[in-house]
């Protein structure tokens, strides 16, 4: 029975006016149910973006309602796109992504495959790898910065290095790019468990009969993985890579908490959001015009990336 039929039954009996039919109807309740979300989304996501796009054309410092004489046209965009630090931050994101994507991908897929092979204590191991997901980047940064990768002699990794006769490493001093080891290992620890669960779900969707058919053909081990598991995981893999990249694009918490000191944020390792924070809201004054322009550029970058990935995946699927 379809919903309109029920509506008729409910509103008939007495001669219902047109208004009454609208109020009780399915369409009416659709809007009632969706209204809180829709109004909120427009007010706190879309109106702000439009407002920010407007602000990006002004030299708006410490104000969200600039005067006409503060109009600078595309001045903010020009100064950002010619600012070496801004371009460097995009480069930093690229380097970070190129390292974190393959590592996270391989580690989470590897863990999912390992877990699939064992029966006893599987849930225990899954929990151990998954629990770091609940830890905040602030607290992880605390552990990494002050104990694991502390640059002093007593840092845990430095203690291990010294026990092999090596010299302590200044992990976060910025003299060498070793700070990437700190930042990448932190993010790996915190997010690998999440993608592992996604891979487990993907693996579970591959039917047992697919494997059995392949086994009959004599496929085992690596061959089985290469020709059955891997292709079957294609769409899961595409989604996971997209998620890892988007989350790397948003990197802020662990960079800030690992590297910021009382003297401010060091000049290296500034991914886009850290850069944006430092030029717009991180200092003593608020430069909302410049910050808005930066937001517009970064939003464009992530949207273009998302569309390219979407189209690419569609093409790939169509070819199969």
């Amino acid at each position, binding site marked *: 029975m379809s919903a*309109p039929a029920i509506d008729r039954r409910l509103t008939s009996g007495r001669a219902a006016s047109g208004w009454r039919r609208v109020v009780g109807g399915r369409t009416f309740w*659709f809007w009632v149910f*969706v209204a809180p*979300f829709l109004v909120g989304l427009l007010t706190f996501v*879309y109106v702000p973006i439009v407002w*920010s796009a407007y602000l990006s054309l002004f030299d708006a410092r410490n104000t969200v309602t600039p005067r006409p004489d503060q109009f600078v046209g595309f001045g903010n965009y020009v100064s950002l796109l010619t600012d070496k630090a801004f371009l460097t931050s995009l480069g930093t994101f690229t380097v970070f992504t190129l390292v974190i994507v393959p590592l996270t991908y391989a580690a989470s897929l590897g863990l999912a495959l*390992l877990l699939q092979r064992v029966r006893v204590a599987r849930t225990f191991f899954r*929990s151990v790898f998954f629990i770091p997901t609940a830890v*905040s980047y*602030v607290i992880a940064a605390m552990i990494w910065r002050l104990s694991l990768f502390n640059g002093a002699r007593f840092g845990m990794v430095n203690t291990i290095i010294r026990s092999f006769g090596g010299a302590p490493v200044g992990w976060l001093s910025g003299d060498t790019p070793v700070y990437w080891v700190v930042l990448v290992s932190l993010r790996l620890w915190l997010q690998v468990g999440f993608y592992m669960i996604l891979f487990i779900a993907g693996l579970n969707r591959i039917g047992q009969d697919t494997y059995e058919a392949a086994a009959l053909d004599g496929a085992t081990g690596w061959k089985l993985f290469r020709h059955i598991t891997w292709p079957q995981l294609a769409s899961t893999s595409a989604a996971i890579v997209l998620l890892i990249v988007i989350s790397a694009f948003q990197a802020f918490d662990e960079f800030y908490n690992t590297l910021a000191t009382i003297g401010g944020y060091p000049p290296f390792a500034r991914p886009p959001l850290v850069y944006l924070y430092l030029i717009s809201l991180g200092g003593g004054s608020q430069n909302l015009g410049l910050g808005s322009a930066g937001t517009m550029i970064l939003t464009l970058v992530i949207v273009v990336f998302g569309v390219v990935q979407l189209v690419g995946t569609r093409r790939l699927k169509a070819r199969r």
Partner: protein
Amino acid sequence: MRQSRASLIGAYVVLGILALLFLVPFYVMIRNAFSTSTWISSPTWHLLPNSWGTGNLSRLLANTNVGLVQALGVSAVIAVTQTVLTLVIAAMAGYALAKLAPAGRGPMRRASSAVLGLTLVTLMVPSAVTFVPSFVMVAGLGWVSSFRGLIVPLLFSAFAVFLYRQYFTGFPVELEEAARLDGAGYWRTFWRVVMPNSIGITGAIGTITFIGAWNAFLWPLLIGQDRAYRTVQVALSTFMTSQGVDVPELFTGGLVAILPVVLVFVVLQRFLVEGVERSGIG
């Protein structure tokens, strides 16, 4: 699938080593939380703590620079309010998009498709990237340093709406029809029949939202500048980057801040795993 004994043992050995590695950060935090400063900064690594008991905790609680108790309160208010309201708003919208969207081809149909499209587009732009616009809006409303400013902008989660919509699309229509034949309207059907049968998905989205809210850093850093609105993450971060940081106190604070989420996590892990799997990926 049969596998050789050797490869099974190999799998357990690798898993065991990796599990130990994954637990090292937790071990370090617990060790530091129950040690003295000199014990931590000793050139030889001490495996075990030397200050069992509540000495570090009571010093931390007395430290007015950190204000841990107040920060825990602020975080609790934000995380609980945000979770409850996000669930209500997202469940209603997800249900509407899955089950109440106007049929046919009229303008109403197009409008409801537009709402769904808007939700999907929003998924592509992470809210962290648009922190400047959000700040502009909240500043324009005069909500900086207020609970409203900390909570309200985060209540409209396209992700949660999307998950609920996916779930409700597969919700058995017979249950709803039975309720409606008993005379229940759309509103009552939703709250009395649909929601009580959606505990699993609600638990999953609730857990994800709660952990996200408790662990959030950038937004509370921008909006909760005033001491009275500092969350526990911002309080710890400020303490960590301040002069003369007391390491045992800091790690004690970290341990306290981690307990609620790990607890929620362990109790609700089943929901969470289900929720992650459901996120419609693949």
